[in-house]
């Protein structure tokens, strides 16, 4: 059974960041209409779209980045790493996710189990 942590409580700055319409210099770079305000973010999907490039298999295995399942790092470390990143290794997501979203990501990591079967 796949984990599907839903983030439903977006802070206003984060929501604004997520829904920003790009005002770009040409038709070529024009962006898109805003997503619905009730848009939810699925942390499982977040790993499938973004985090999984480095944290393999939804965070269950080491890849470019470390395995997150059963990590010995404490919440403060993970929170700080998500917010500020690590130069040359992990982007800073502090401007992308609210504190509440980051807590949801941490809960997802703590709940990671090996795939059944």
């Amino acid at each position: 059974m796949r984990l599907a942590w839903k983030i439903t409580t977006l802070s206003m700055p984060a929501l604004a960041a997520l829904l920003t319409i790009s005002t770009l210099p040409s038709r070529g770079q024009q962006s898109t209409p805003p997503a619905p305000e009730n848009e939810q973010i699925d942390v499982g999907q977040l790993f499938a779209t973004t985090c999984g490039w480095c944290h393999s298999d939804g965070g269950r295995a080491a890849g470019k980045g470390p395995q997150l399942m059963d990590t010995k790092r404490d919440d403060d470390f993970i929170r700080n790493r998500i917010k500020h990143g690590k130069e040359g290794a992990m982007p800073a997501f502090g401007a992308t996710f609210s504190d509440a979203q980051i807590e949801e990501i941490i809960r997802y990591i703590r709940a990671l189990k090996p795939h059944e079967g």
Partner: protein
Amino acid sequence: MKKQWRYSCLPVLVIGAALTASSAFAQSVDTARIEAGGQNDWLTYHGSYKSYHYSPLAQINPSNVSNLGVAWIHIPGRSTRGLQSMPLAADGVLYYTGSYSRTFALNGATGEVIWSYFPELDEALIARQTHSPYNRGAAIGEGKVYVGTMDGRLIALDMKTGKVMWDTKLIDSQKLTVGFTGAPLYAKGTVVIGAQGGEWPGRGPIFGVDAATGKKKWEFLTVAGTDDAMKTWGNDSWRTGGGGGWMPGTYDSETNTVLWGTANPAPLYDWSGADYKTQGARPGDNLYTTSVIALDMDTGKLKSFHQELPHDAWDFDSAVGEFVMLDRDGQKYIVHPNKSGYIFVYDRSLGVKNVWRITQNSNFVKDIDPKTGELIGRRDFSAGKVSEPLCPHISGGVSWNSGSYNPKTGLYYKLGQEWCMTLEVQKTTPIVAPQAQLNIGADFKIAPPPGGEIYGHLDARDPITGAKKWEVRFPEPPLGSVLSTGGNLVFVPDSRGTVHAYDADSGAELWSHGDGTGHQGGIISYAVNGKQYIAVVAGFGGMASDDYAPTFGGVYKSMPRDDGALVVYSLR
């Protein structure tokens, strides 16, 4: 006495030649000169517009390569994600870039710094970027050095002084998060540079910029850049974007055409199943992603194209920048490697003439028709776990780095990569505005090929037919570029940090030397004062090489991913 006189006269002649050669900036670098390639120089990313990555210099050859040693080293500093650039050389001066677009002009004989330029970048933006802050090289022409930046600018520097001549913002990177990592291409008064794309919800622009003024002349969108192309993105899926052209292509002076390879659509992996024309994340062929395109140099208008993988569902894009221009039996050919490991052979209008494969392990399609380029037996995934591992791995059957064609042997020396991946495709919500940057569409993990181990190989092949003459294997895929020379040598900088020299005819290893860290960038040859040099960038780290420590362990466990050096060799 007569003999003595002759010998004593030689140094005078050499000094004369040396003065000519070392009087840097004595000649301007223009389109004709880059086209010719030149004996002593390396004037554009691919060596010349022919994209041979070949130097005719023959002073270093099988008889003396054992005497090759380090002439000088330069440390650029702050080499986050290593060094990935291709040096250039003109009139005795070596130009190269490092991470954060640090740009250097060095005395090619001694390494002495003539000038350096560190652009002031938007560091907060760069901290948010995934494919950053490496830089893959510069272009030269009209007395300037051109370099792109991760915050969306193209900058021209005076070749003599490093002074900024113009600084043009081309992309709103704050909004799109993408910028420029690839080298620009200079030709005919225009500087061409392509943006990152692939995983981001932009439209992957390629720009033509006036070399004299820095003013944008044209822009071509690799995502739905024409009305016809817009129709190949069902359900307005062009908004999820991708594309881009993040490696430099080349210029065909006979037709005044820019040839460029484009990157993949987003998300990388689609859940469409077999009916990808009408179902899934981006129904349709998704033009002009994963394509080779021919643009008019003056206007940027599309002249012709071939989409190597229609509806690329595997991230095997066409961004590789090599367009090897060949003449054989009265026919003109272009050879372009696709990331999948299939090598496409075209005529000069991008009509398919042949397709051959360099990898052993490949199953994303059963085959590609060598006559038409049509994909046969493609695997289009549905959401869920993919039963059989996908081959090759997301890092490709070939790297974005370049092979080398040697006109003396008629052989194309190219690296292949044998690795696969397990994959679980996920149906995701469309990402139409930049947020957390990437848009993969799957969980995945690197895996060995069925029944075997991961490895890499240097092949010596006929570039048109793919017929293999010899092969050298490596325990881990080398990721750097290849150099061949008129001295009948092939140089391969490998991932462990060793530079190898092979006999171009037999593949016998003749020399090797450790650079202290892995390679994933360029290697060139040039001459100053009659002396031949081999210059290679060393420094590991990035989207492919970051997998090496967890996958292979060993030397990669302690290999830095924030360090690098330019190492220059000559005969002792």
